[in-house]
């Protein structure tokens, strides 16, 4: 509606490093931040999504309200200096905001395009907001729409089908080597974010054991706890390699930490059990020559990118289709939103009344051919008088300046009562 705007603010994995996202004030729990958001002056409806890859806030606020600053303050807390916020934060308004929300719900904005988890997270977030009545007619409609858009994209495109990310590629390669990943052991060297993500995927594929080797043991323990695994120090690396099947290395070491000559004797103790090394560190951790050893498979980050590229053209085709659906649905939503404002509703209501008058008049007058022109005019006048008198009250209720903040409720009601609901 003209007097209100939809505002979306957020940070995600593309704009903001994990270290900063971890510090955000809004990344724990929903209730408190939602209450805080609702109390911001000028904010009518609000909603908050918080996942490990993104924190996003959508509010419906009065057009001239200066809510942006308040929300940003709430989002970043004291962790980030105000002048730095601009580097991380993205802000979308109205149809851009709608479009972005649809991009999120359809996973087109995810780190792993095509993943399904985000929809569940979105629904969960909405449930929290709806429970404490933070959402109103606009956000209710918007979020429900975002769910149905996601469903539409999933059923009309193959976006979820192909391996689309680095960690998916790693899992796919591991499956090509080992068949099943059950009963396989994963060793993480270093505890970076990418390693964590890849390990997460491997664990979801049924990997039985995760061992984390890290320079600082405390971080290793923290990560190991997440996967119900064990933490070891880097000194135990070689003995751990005897049992590991999949090794993900992501240390910040400036040099290669594992050479061909180190791994060769280990292969003998392993009785040549195949081992899959994934080196996602930049600069590299693992000797590229490891790949020359029998039953050793080494992939670095570029190799994995290439695997992803193989699927890319296929995925791109699907993503284009998905994006078209998102564009289309965002436009539809915009139309609905426009319909919510008072003026078009008034016009539509008048038009409907006029149409009915016209139709009924034609029907009646065609049967009363004997009437004179004056008499016909009088009947027409009567019909339009009845309709405009009937419309007078609903129209003045709509135009009432006193309770303008409830405009959308009123408009929704009138549109429903008079059957002005547009089919979408």
């Amino acid at each position, binding site marked *: 509606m003209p007097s209100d705007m939809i505002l979306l603010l957020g940070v995600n994995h593309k704009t903001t490093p994990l270290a900063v996202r971890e510090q955000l004030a809004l990344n724990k729990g929903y209730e408190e931040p939602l209450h805080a958001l609702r109390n911001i002056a000028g904010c009518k409806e609000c909603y908050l999504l918080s996942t490990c890859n993104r924190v996003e806030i959508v509010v419906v606020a009065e057009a001239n309200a200066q809510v942006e600053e308040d929300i940003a303050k709430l989002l970043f807390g004291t962790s980030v200096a105000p002048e730095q916020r601009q580097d991380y934060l993205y802000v979308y308004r109205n149809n851009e905001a709608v479009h972005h929300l649809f991009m999120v719900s359809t996973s087109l904005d995810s780190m792993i395009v095509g993943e399904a988890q985000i929809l569940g997270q979105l629904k969960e977030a909405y449930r929290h907001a709806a429970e404490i009545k933070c959402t109103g007619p606009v956000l209710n409609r918007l979020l429900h729409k975002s769910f149905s858009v996601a469903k539409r994209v999933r059923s009309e495109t193959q976006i979820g089908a192909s391996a689309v990310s680095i960690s998916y590629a790693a899992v796919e*390669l591991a*499956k*090509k*080597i080992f068949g*099943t990943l059950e009963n396989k052991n994963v060793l993480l060297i270093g505890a970076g974010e990418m390693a964590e993500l890849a390990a997460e995927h491997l664990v979801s594929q049924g990997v039985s054991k995760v061992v984390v080797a890290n320079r600082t043991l405390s971080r290793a323990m923290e990560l190991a706890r997440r996967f119900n695994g064990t933490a070891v120090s880097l000194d135990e690396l070689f003995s751990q390699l005897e049992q590991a099947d999949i090794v993900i290395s992501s240390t910040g070491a400036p040099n290669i930490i594992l050479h061909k000559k180190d791994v060769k004797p280990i292969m003998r103790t392993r*009785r*040549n059990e195949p081992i899959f090394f994934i080196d996602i560190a930049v600069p590299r951790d693992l000797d590229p020559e490891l*790949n020359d050893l029998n039953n050793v498979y080494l992939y670095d980050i570029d190799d994995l990118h290439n*695997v992803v590229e193989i699927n890319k053209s296929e995925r791109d085709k699907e993503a284009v289709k998905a994006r078209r659906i998102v564009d289309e649905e965002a436009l539809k939503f915009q139309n609905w939103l426009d319909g919510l404002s008072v003026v078009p509703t008034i016009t539509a209501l008048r038009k409907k009344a006029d149409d009915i008058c016209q139709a009924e008049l034609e029907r009646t007058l065609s049967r009363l051919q004997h009437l004179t022109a004056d008499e016909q005019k009088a009947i027409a006048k009567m019909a339009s008088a009845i309709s405009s008198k009937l419309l007078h009250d609903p129209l003045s209720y709509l135009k009432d300046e006193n309770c303008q903040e409830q405009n959308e409720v009123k408009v929704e009601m009138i549109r429903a009562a008079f059957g002005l609901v547009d089919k979408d």
Partner: protein
Amino acid sequence: MGEISYLLFWVILAVSFTNLIFYGIFFVKQQESIRTLARMTLVAVGVLQTLYVLLRFLQTGYTPITSQHETIVFFAWSITWAYFSFRWRYTVKNFGVFISLLLFILILLAAGASRTINPLPPALQSWWLPIHAGISVISYAFLALAFCGGIMYLLLERELKSKRFGYFFSRLPSLDSLDQLNSHCLATGFVLLTLGIITGSIWARQAWGTYWHWDPKETWSLITWFLYAAQIHQRFSAGWRGKRAAVMAVVGFASVLFTLWGVTFLLGGIHSYAQ
């Protein structure tokens, strides 16, 4: 009967060709419906081969495993049923494609060989013929499966190592399952190969008077046996697996083929009945 047998062979060739076409289309398109057709025709090939071997048995009065033509058909029949016995316990994606190619090549070769029925030489008129020759050829069939698995392994391994994923990456099963195939078929094939040599040696004692003649065929089967014995030993003691095992499966099968045909044509000897 000769007429029926004659026709039946051409039917086998046709069905085998159809089977190869179905598997070929399936390999390219990976459509379930075509796979069902391919599997059904492969079963048909197996059944028809069995009928043909039985018919030939009735026709000749001895186990049809003496002439070139008979041996190749018997070999193909053994491969088909060895494959079914393997398939009954394990699933290896697209293995049938490679098997159907091998089967078709063999049957094509059999079509080229003379089908005349020769009277059985006196030395072969024994119950040892089906036992010794049958077991040996069946062992070769399992080794042929290991060979196919080895080829598949090498194709996939090359793509995984070079990180250039071409045609085979999505169409071949995991390295692990191919390695399992190798170990299963190698073990079965080796046990049968050993039995084949032992029974042959007993028969030789009866027919020729000594257990071992150092006849070229015997020598080569011993070489083959040593190749596979080394492989088995290394696999189960030192954990030889993967690429090395696959290469050995290919090398071993080359030696099998040489024992089966190369010796007969190139080296001769008293063992060369099937000229």
